[in-house]
């Protein structure tokens, strides 16, 4: 097996979260009734003039900056010509000759701890096509709502040499883009789409092997599985003395294999030419600086800040920065006065467990940073025990105010010595053996006694106060 090497290049399309389309003012809004968000420009009517959306171009600039790429200073738009029902103009406006970004890189953390740099060849801003649905009854239906939605296409260098590296690259790319705020980057909703190119050659061969293109990959897991299958298939073909055809395949989930879609004959013939209806763009230093100043804090910067300012472990900081929503939620919880370590523990533990259980995204829950911070403060000032906090947490997942909930349900921690001391005396009377053990130097005995006090108060006693009172009472005996 080791006598072959694998070359993988990935083309990733990211849908931008702009309000309007790339070249027309129609709204961009997923899930609206079919063809609601279309106008004469989207339908490619004769005589209409497109206009370029500033936010779409700047989205491309932000992606370029996040991927350490150079920004092209002189950009013009190009037409890519092809005829298809979801493409009413019969061309797609893109940046074939002058991509907004070029020569960037993404750094991935390899399992052995090493860092590997994957080159970014280029990034272009372009427009999405409409959506065809196939009836299977002799006709298809076309919805042009998505037609013209701005995309950024990110083309990697063929630097990826294994399915695992491809997976790590996609995860990292998603994080980098998500922290710019330009896209939701969700594979399952189509706001991130991946096309794969893979070839295999004997080690030492001068030329790359024939590359196979794979479409219809809709999760990172599928991308990895597709590549594992395809790498093996190509090796076996070569070992059997066969040649690899230049073809497009698609991943078939049920059989975990790739299926031939079509054989490519010659290069695609898109007859690109410069778009005459849109003026060219010149990008100045000042413009780049202005766009850079609007970029939110990157994940790597946040990890560093969480470790140095709040003393979090690198592992915890990494979990908090897996998604922008989580990192923002953490920052807001701390800004609302919560202890950072406790806030981190809550998000990594209870909140993540809640999200997994409900299959919700953080922003779609009733959890708020204000309520979580309030809950944490109630623990820290001794009002409620950590056990009571579990109930309060459930309440805040239902959108309830923690303070009001605590008052309404009488969840106030028992910290009053005049109430606790008689209880403790009684428990000591009933547990002479433990008292003797403690006197005899067995520190563990105090744990047992604390447990007895907690039990008799149904978990409502303040453990810190109980501990102090127990020591005081024991010293009297």
């Amino acid at each position, binding site marked *: 097996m080791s006598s072959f090497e694998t070359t993988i290049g990935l083309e990733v399309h990211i849908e931008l979260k702009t309000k309007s389309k790339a070249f027309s003012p*129609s709204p961009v809004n997923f899930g609206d009734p079919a063809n609601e968000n279309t*106008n004469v420009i989207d339908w490619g009517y004769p005589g209409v003039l497109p206009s370029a959306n500033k936010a779409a*171009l700047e989205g491309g600039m932000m992606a370029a900056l996040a991927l350490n790429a150079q920004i092209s200073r002189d950009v013009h738009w190009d037409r890519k010509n092809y005829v298809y*029902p979801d493409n009413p103009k019969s061309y797609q406006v893109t940046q074939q000759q002058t991509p907004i970004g070029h020569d960037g890189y993404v750094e991935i953390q390899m399992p052995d701890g090493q860092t590997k740099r994957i080159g970014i060849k280029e990034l272009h801003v372009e427009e999405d096509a409409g959506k065809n649905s196939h009836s299977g009854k002799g006709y*298809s*239906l076309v919805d042009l709502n998505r037609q013209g939605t701005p995309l950024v296409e990110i083309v990697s260098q063929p630097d990826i040499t294994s399915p695992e590296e491809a997976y790590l690259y996609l995860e990292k790319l998603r994080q980098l883009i998500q922290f710019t705020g330009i896209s939701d980057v969700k594979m399952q909703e189509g706001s991130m789409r991946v096309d794969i190119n893979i070839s295999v050659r004997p080690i030492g061969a001068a030329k790359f092997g024939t590359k196979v293109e794979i479409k219809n990959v809709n999760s990172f897991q599928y991308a990895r599985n597709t590549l594992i299958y395809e790498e093996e298939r190509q090796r076996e073909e070569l070992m059997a003395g066969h040649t690899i055809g230049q073809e497009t395949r698609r991943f078939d989930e049920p059989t975990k294999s790739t299926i031939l879609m079509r054989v490519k004959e010659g290069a695609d013939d898109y007859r690109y030419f410069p778009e005459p209806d849109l003026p060219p763009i010149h990008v100045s230093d000042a413009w780049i600086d202005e766009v850079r100043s609007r970029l939110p804090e990157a994940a790597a910067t946040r990890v560093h800040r969480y470790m140095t300012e709040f003393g979090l472990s690198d592992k915890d900081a990494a979990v908090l920065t897996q998604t922008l929503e989580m990192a923002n939620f953490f920052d807001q919880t701390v800004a609302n006065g919560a202890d950072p370590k406790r806030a981190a523990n809550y998000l990594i533990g209870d909140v993540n467990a809640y999200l997994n259980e409900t299959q919700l995204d953080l922003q779609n829950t009733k959890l708020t940073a204000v309520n979580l911070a309030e809950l944490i403060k109630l623990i820290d000032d001794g009002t409620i025990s950590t056990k009571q906090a579990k109930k309060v947490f459930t309440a805040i997942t239902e959108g309830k105010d923690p303070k009001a909930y605590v008052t309404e349900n009488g969840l106030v921690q028992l910290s009053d010595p005049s109430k606790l001391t008689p209880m403790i005396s009684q428990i000591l009377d009933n547990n002479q053996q433990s008292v003797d053990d403690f006197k005899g130097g067995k520190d563990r005995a105090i744990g047992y006694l604390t447990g007895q006090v907690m039990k008799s108060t149904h978990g409502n006693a303040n453990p810190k106060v109980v501990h102090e009172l127990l020591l005081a009472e024991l010293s009297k005996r």
Partner: protein
Amino acid sequence: MSNSLPREDAAHVAQLAKLHFSDQQLDVLTGQLASILDLVETLNEVDTEGVEPTYTVSNNVNVLREDLAVKSGQKAALLANAPETQDGQIKVPAIIDEES
């Protein structure tokens, strides 16, 4: 230079445009397309040494639209111009799934 277009090239262009011609039609159209190309070819006689390529006819640069959404409210009118519709969508002949 005249009639320099190979017949296969004309057939290829027709295929890209999803146009279907009989052999006879293709013969006629190959000739017509060749003479159009020959005419355009005369532009190559112009000396363009030192002339910047023209991407657009205006001299405007950086004309960009602010990102504000505008609903056209023209869905019904647009659909009325489609040859056939169903459920608010454009009905087209079955697409043989070669792209996605």
